[in-house]
């Protein structure tokens, strides 16, 4: 039905002729053209910085500070990537980040899933207070809790360890996760649990067997949110970790960037290596993410 390439162009020409025919269609086509132009410009502005990082990462070492704006520089090379992977502990940093982030996400989502269920299905004294607590926790200025956490971790002698980081991170996304999950649970009809109760499970059993499996989209969103928040975090890590070996990738990348010499090439290469997978995951799950966000906010 779609036909050959030649067929495509002749059909394109035919529809263009059709469009030119009527003033209504002409106006509409013009409008769409303008929309395309504006949107493409905006998209360009959004993507350009990323492309620039790519081009910086590909520059040969001797021209790191050039004012050349071309996207693929002359003599493009992967040397920066190679030296990043060989000469620095980049892989180690990635590993650190991965462990911490996975553990944090897992803990965060587990805790949130049960709490959200309680908020969704039960009425109990303190429910309203609990929700207000969750909401107001969003208003706590960043950095306010870093100090006490820092002091706590110092006292527990967990500075510079994975466990210290996990402790610091695990609760940070909890309010938001609970909110999202609660919103999702609210949309699942209670008749499902009632049917399960009639079939013989307990309330908890109904939660485990029925609600949880049905909530995989929301759980994935919560997991994703926990993951990205922990993965991209910088300020807390800077305070808790102080030896190069234990750095997360955010700190590691900063090492490359600060001090006296900025190793732009490696910095750019590292940025690309971290950004690509994050973008990929994000874009893959973007449909869920968006519906999850609007779900929560509309109900709220």
């Amino acid at each position, binding site marked *: 039905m779609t036909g050959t390439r030649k067929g495509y162009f002749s059909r394109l020409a035919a529809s263009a002729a059709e469009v030119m025919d009527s003033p209504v269609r002409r106006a509409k086509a013009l409008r769409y053209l303008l929309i395309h132009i504006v949107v493409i410009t905006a998209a360009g502005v959004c*993507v350009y910085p990323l492309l620039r990082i790519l081009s910086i990462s590909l520059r040969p070492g001797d021209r790191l500070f050039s004012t050349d704006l071309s996207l693929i520089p002359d003599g493009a090379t992967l040397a920066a990537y190679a030296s990043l992977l060989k000469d620095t502990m980049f892989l180690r940093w990635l590993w650190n980040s991965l462990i911490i982030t996975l*553990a944090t996400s*897992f803990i965060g989502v587990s805790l949130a899933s049960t709490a959200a269920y309680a908020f969704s299905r039960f009425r109990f004294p303190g429910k309203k207070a*609990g929700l207000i607590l969750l909401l107001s926790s969003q208003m706590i*200025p960043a950095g306010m809790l870093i100090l006490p956490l820092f002091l706590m971790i110092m006292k527990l002698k967990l500075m510079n360890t994975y466990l210290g980081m996990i402790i610091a991170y695990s609760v940070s996304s909890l309010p938001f996760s609970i909110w999202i999950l609660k919103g999702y649970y609210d949309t699942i009809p209670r008749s499902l649990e009632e049917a399960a109760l009639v079939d013989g499970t307990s309330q908890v059993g109904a939660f485990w067997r029925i609600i949880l499996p049905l909530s995989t989209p929301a759980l994935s969103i919560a997991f994703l949110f926990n993951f990205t928040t922990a993965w991209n975090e910088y300020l807390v890590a800077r305070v808790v970790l102080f030896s190069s070996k234990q750095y997360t990738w955010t700190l590691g990348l900063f090492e490359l960037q600060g001090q006296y010499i900025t190793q732009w090439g490696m910095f750019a290469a590292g940025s690309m290596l971290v950004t690509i997978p994050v973008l990929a995951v994000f874009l893959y799950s973007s449909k869920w993410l968006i519906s999850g966000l609007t779900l929560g906010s509309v109900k709220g």
Partner: protein
Amino acid sequence: MELLRSVYEVAGFILLIALGVAALEGYFYYHFKFHDRPWFFWAGLAVFPLLAWSGFVAGGIAKPGLFAWLLALEAAVLAFFRYAVKGRHSLAYLLLLPAFVGLALLLVYPFLFEVYLSFHDLKLTTIMMWKNTGKIPFVGLEQYVKVFTTSPLSEVTFWALLGRTLLWTFSNVFFHVLGGFALALLLNNAISLKGVYRTLLVIPWAMPQVVAVLAMRGEFHSQNGFVNIVLGRIAEAYPFLAGLGVGPVQWLSDYPLLTCTIINVWLGIPFMMVVILGGLQSISTSYYDAADIDGASYFQKLRYITLPLVKPVLMPAVTLGTVWTFNNINVIYLVTGQAGGTEQADILVSALYKAAFTYNRYSYSAAFAIVVFALLFFISVTYLHGFDAAKDER
């Protein structure tokens, strides 16, 4: 090998947490389930000391005073569950327990600790004393007074910071909503490649914030940044424009707040766009059809149909966005601050972070933080009240 060891470590830790949660749940389960049995009190008071004592032995602590305290506490807890709670809502509380214990330990306790700190004087000179003796001087409301009268960093005052923060917040949110709305309206048409465009437009939000901010910051670099290179080339090619003042600008040193704002707007538009687009797509086309027949122009449709129907989705997003922007420390800090940087771009939260970690004025910073929190809380409450009242009126 070391890698595997770290995995073990973390897995072990998670297991530990799971056990801790299970123990906690078990403890509360006992109190909920058996509160009406005759042996409730006695069993509780018998088992608990055993557990506590073994805990003490394991931890190497031997404080009889503490032990007596804990016993009294347990008795109180038993009474509470017997007479007050009576086993109601047990399941709900059991479900909430792990999350809220976590929040209590890692959110409420630190918060209260900050409050405690704010009434004392913990700074560089007193921290050693605290480490050794666990005591710091009590100073009452002195820190709070200092918040309003002295500078958190070296020059800028609280009021200047407040003003700047408000300016920062409003201008950012304004452009976020404007840009996001415009893009959402554009994307809401039946154009081809819509999915591709949406994907591309979302990139600033999807990228790790650290990378995105540092990348954009790099573009504002006075020599190697994209903006100045282009400006420079324009000034070369069109000298009359150069005469008007168009040319490379020292962004980071001369206009740090403006630079941060531009970067943050670039970062924040995609989120608004996505939320608004979702709202737009949920508006049924029948309304527009009916309005077409009624003769409404494009702007009339926008004003009478689109805006009111998008509001329920827009308002929470704007609220969240405002709070996040007000508290956005990342952008300011990353753009201006690592090496001590300038103070001209600081907003409230970045100043408080720097006061704590660059200047080591911990107590001062705690008081500062409490003030900022109170401010934000107060504003949100009045805003929500106003919003609710408006809703009820209708």
